[in-house]
C-alpha cells in the first residue's frame, strides 16, 4: 500500500532551498522520510536488545526468554512445523494477541488520523472509554433487539460517542484555538471520572451486584461472535475484521477522498490549505471527530468482544488509548504501519504475560516486573526513535545549513 503518489521510494534529493515546513506534522513527516522504514525497525530491534540486557542482568538467558515471549505471542502458530499441544497453545495465544491488536489498531488510527491533519490526539483513551460506556449501555439495555441489529447499534453509537468526544477537542481548537493536546488530556480525565461515577457504587449504571463498582454486563445478543477458539475461554471475536476494515477505511479516506485530501493539506501546511480554498477550522473539527470515531469503536470492540462489563479499577488501569499513540508513532501514521505497530504491541502484551514464563525459572515477582520493563523499553525507544532521527537531522542541518547544491 503506497500512501500517496508522492511517497515513491527514492523520490528526490533534499529540497534545494526550502525552509523548514511549519507544522509539527510536516516536520515530523520530513524526519520520517529521512528515517525511512529502517528507523522503526532499528528502534524495535534496539528495544529488544536493551530488554535482553535487562533479562541477562537478572541472571536469565535472554535468548530463551525471548523464545518464550515469542511463543507466548502465538505467532509461532504461523509456522507449519509447530504441532500437537504446542499448536493448541499457540492458537490460544494468537487469539489473545489478536484480541489485544484489535483495539490497538483502532486507537492507533485515532492518533494517526488526527496526526495527518496536523494534530496530536492524546485523547484516544477518553474517546475509547466513552465508546466503551455507550457500548455497555446499549449492549446491556436494549436486549430485545435481534443480534446483528443490536451489535450494529452498539458499535455505531459507541463510534458516534467517540466522535463527539474527539469532536469537542477539534471544535475547541477551531473556535478558540485551544491546543488539542491540552483539551484531549483534560477530556481523558473527564471520561475517566464520568465512568467512575457511572459504574461506581450507587452510580446510575452500576451493575446488579450492589457491592462492587462494576457495570451491567452486555446481553448475549450484543456480543461479537467468537469465530476462533472457545467463547468461554475468551476466543477471538470478529472485531479483528472490523479493525482491519477500519485500516482500509482510513487509507481510502486519506488517499481517495476530498476529505482526506483536505486533511493532508491542512496537516502539512494550513496556510497553503487555506490558500487552496480549504476551511482549516472545519477540518480540525472533522478530523478530530473521525479520530474519535476510531477510538470509540475500539471501546466497543473490547466491551462487545470479550470484556462485557467494566469495573472502575479497570477504567483507571486501562491504557489502550495511550498505547495507541506509540502504535501510531511507530507505524508512521500510515495504515500498514499502524497495523504492524498494533500487532507488535498486542503481541508484546500477550507474549510478556507472566503465564508465558516458566515458573521454575522466573521468580513470580521478577516475571511480573520483567514484562513491564520490556514493554516500557519498547515504548521508550519509540520515543527515542524520533529523538535519534531528530539529532541526525539536526547535525545534518548544522553541517549543511546553507547548502545549495547545483541542479
Amino acid at each position, binding site marked *: 500500500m503506497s500512501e*500517496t*503518489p*508522492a511517497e*515513491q521510494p527514492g*523520490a*528526490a*534529493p*533534499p*529540497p*534545494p*532551498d*526550502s*525552509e523548514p*515546513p*511549519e507544522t509539527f506534522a*510536516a516536520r515530523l*513527516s*520530513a524526519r520520517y522520510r529521512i528515517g525511512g522504514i529502517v528507523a522503526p525497525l532499528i528502534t524495535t530491534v534496539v528495544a529488544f536488545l536493551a530488554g535482553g540486557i535487562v533479562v541477562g542482568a537478572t541472571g536469565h538467558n535472554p535468548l530463551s526468554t525471548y523464545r518464550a515471549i515469542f511463543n507466548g505471542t502465538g505467532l509461532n502458530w504461523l509456522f507449519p512445523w509447530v504441532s500437537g499441544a504446542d499448536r493448541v497453545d499457540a492458537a490460544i495465544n494468537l487469539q489473545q494477541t489478536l484480541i489485544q491488536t484489535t483495539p490497538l489498531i483502532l486507537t492507533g488510527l485515532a492518533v494517526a488520523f488526527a496526526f495527518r491533519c496536523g494534530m496530536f490526539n492524546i485523547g484516544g483513551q477518553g474517546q475509547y472509554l466513552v465508546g466503551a460506556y455507550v457500548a455497555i449501555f446499549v449492549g446491556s439495555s436494549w436486549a430485545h433487539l435481534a443480534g446483528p441489529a443490536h451489535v450494529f447499534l452498539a458499535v455505531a453509537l459507541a463510534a458516534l460517542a467517540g466522535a463527539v468526544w474527539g469532536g469537542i477537542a477539534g471544535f475547541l481548537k477551531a473556535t478558540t484555538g485551544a491546543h488539542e493536546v491540552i483539551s484531549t488530556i483534560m477530556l481523558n480525565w473527564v471520561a475517566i471520572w464520568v465512568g467512575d461515577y457511572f459504574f461506581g457504587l450507587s452510580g446510575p449504571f452500576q451493575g446488579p451486584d450492589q457491592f462492587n463498582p462494576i457495570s451491567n454486563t452486555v446481553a448475549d445478543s450484543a456480543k461479537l461472535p467468537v469465530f476462533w477458539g472457545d467463547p468461554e475461554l475468551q476466543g477471538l471475536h470478529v472485531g479483528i475484521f472490523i479493525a482491519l476494515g477500519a485500516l482500509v477505511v482510513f487509507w481510502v479516506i486519506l*488517499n*481517495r*477522498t*476530498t*476529505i*482526506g*485530501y*483536505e486533511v*493532508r*493539506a491542512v496537516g*502539512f*501546511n494550513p*496556510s*497553503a*490549505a*487555506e*490558500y*487552496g*480554498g*480549504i*476551511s482549516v477550522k472545519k477540518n480540525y473539527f472533522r478530523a478530530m471527530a473521525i479520530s474519535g470515531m476510531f477510538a470509540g469503536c475500539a471501546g466497543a470492540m473490547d466491551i462487545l468482544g470479550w470484556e462485557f462489563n467494566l469495573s472502575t479499577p479497570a477504567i483507571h488501569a486501562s491504557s489502550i488509548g495511550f498505547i495507541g499513540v506509540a502504535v501510531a508513532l511507530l507505524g508512521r501514521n500510515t495504515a500498514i504501519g499502524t497495523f504492524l505497530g498494533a500487532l507488535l504491541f498486542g503481541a508484546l502484551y500477550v507474549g510478556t504475560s507472566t503465564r508465558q514464563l516458566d515458573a521454575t525459572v522466573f521468580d513470580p515477582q521478577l516475571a511480573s516486573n520483567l514484562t513491564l520493563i520490556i514493554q516500557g523499553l519498547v515504548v521508550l525507544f519509540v520515543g527515542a526513535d524520533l529523538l535519534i532521527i531528530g539529532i541526525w537531522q539536526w547535525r545534518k542541518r548544522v*553541517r*549543511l*545549513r*546553507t*547548502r*545549495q*547544491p*547545483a*541542479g
Partner: protein
Amino acid sequence: MAASPVLELRGITKQFPGVLANDHIDLDLKRGEVHALLGENGAGKSTLMNILYGLYRPDEGEISVNGKPVTFSSAKDAIAQGIGMVHQHFMLIPVMTVAENIVLGAEPTGAGIMLDYGAARERVREIARTFGFQVDPDARVENITVGQQQRVEILKALYRRADILILDEPTAVLTPQEATELFGILRSLKAEGMSVIFISHKLNEVLDIADRISVLRRGKKIDTVPRAGVTEEGLARMMVGRDVLLRVEKPPASVGDPLLEIHDLHVLDDRDIAKVRGVSLQVRAGEILGIAGVDGNGQTELVEAVTGLRTSSSGTIAVAGKTMPRHAHSRAMLDAGTGHIPEDRQRRGLVLEFSLAENIALHDYCYPPDSEHGWLFPRRLIQHARRLIKDFDVRGGGPTTRAGALSGGNQQKVVVAREVDRNPKVLVAAQPTRGLDVGAIEYVHRRLVTERDEGRAILLVSLELEEILSLSDRILVMFEGQIVGEYPPTATEEELGLAMIGAGKEHAA
C-alpha cells in the same frame, strides 16, 4: 592597491550526494577590492563560501590566506584568519542591544571573569566611527531596521578584526535606499583596505559595486572578468548559459472592462493594527496594475483581503462586477474567478510535502474531473499535472515528485501553471519573482504579459521597482496603507522611490 591576493582558492571541489556543488573552482581576492560572485540559485556560490568560512570541508583543493595555505575545520578558524561572514539570515539576538550582540562570543573580560561591557561599547563606537556607520550601540536589535541589523552583522565581523568580508545576498532584504547606503559602507570599507566577497544574482547591483566579477554556473566557474567592459546581457549569458531577455517586451495593452474593483477598503493585521486604510482601485481586463511600496506598507494585507485570506473591516471588493460578501472565504474568491500567485510560495503557494499533481489540484480538487461526489481520482490529478508540467516546462520532477524537491524557480512555475490554468479573470501576483534567478524571472515576466494579453486583469505587487516599472501598465504607490499616487510606466525609479517613503508629490489617481 597591492596586487598579491589576500585570499586564494585553488581547485575547490565539493561533492554532495548526487550533486557536484563545486567543481575545481579557482578564485582569488585582492586587497581592497569588491569581488562579486554571481550565479543562479544552486550554482554553488553558497557552498563555496561555506567552505571558505569553515562550515564545510572541501573534498579537494586548497585555500591560502596571505599566501599561506590554511585548513579550516570550523568557523572559528576562519575568523582567526580574518574572515568574516554576513549571512542572508541574520544571527542576532533580538532582545539584546547592538553592542551586546556584537561582542557575543568574543566578550572582552576585564578583571577576571566579569564582562567589561564599557570597553566593549567603546570599541564598537570606535569601529563604527572609522567606517562611517550610523548605529546606536545601546539600541535593542529588535527595535532597529533590517538595514541597521545588517550593519550590526558587518560590525560583528569587523569587531573580530576581519579584513575579508563575505556578504551573502546582502541586498535581498533591503529597500533601494538601504541598498544604496550599504554600497556606501562597502566603498568606505574598500577605502580602508578591506576585501569584500559580494554574493548576488542581481546583475545591476553587481555592476554597481564590484571591481571584478566571477560567474558560477552549475558548480563550475565560468570566468572572472573586470567590471569595466561587461554588460548585464553578457553577465546574464554567462550565468544562464544562453541569451536572456532582460527587458520585458510587451505590446501596448488593449484594455477592457474593470474586472477587479476595490472601494475604500480597510484591513487590520493579526495584531488589529490598521494596515490598509481606505484603498480604492480598479484593474481592467488586459492590463497589469503594479503596486509599488516598501515592504510592510499594507501590500500583504491588501492581497490577502482580495484573495479571501483575510477579512476586511470595511469597504467592498467586486470581482467581474460581482460584489463579494465581506466574509468571503478564499474558496468564494477562487470560485468568483480570482487567481493568486502568493508572495511566499513555500508557506502559501505549495504544500511542499504534496506531490506536484496534488499541488496542482490545490484549488480544484473538490470539482470534477479531480473528484466526484467526494471521491478523488489520483490518476486524473496526475494526467492534469503531466499536461501542465509539459506546457509550463517544469523541470526537476514528474507529477509524483514532492514539490519540496524542486528548485525555487520550478516551484514557482508550478504555482503559476496552476493559477493560470484555472483561467482566472483576475490574477493577483504578489512578488512573483522573489528569490528566483534570472532565467526563471524572465519566464515569469513573459508569462504575466501573455496572461495580460489573454484579457486577464493582473494586480502585480512587488518590492522590486525594476519589475514594477518593466511590467506595469499603470503604477500605484502604496505608503502606510494608502495609495499615495498613480504613475505611468515611464516614471523613474527616483520618483517612485520618493513616493514610497511618503515624500512624493501627489499625482492624480
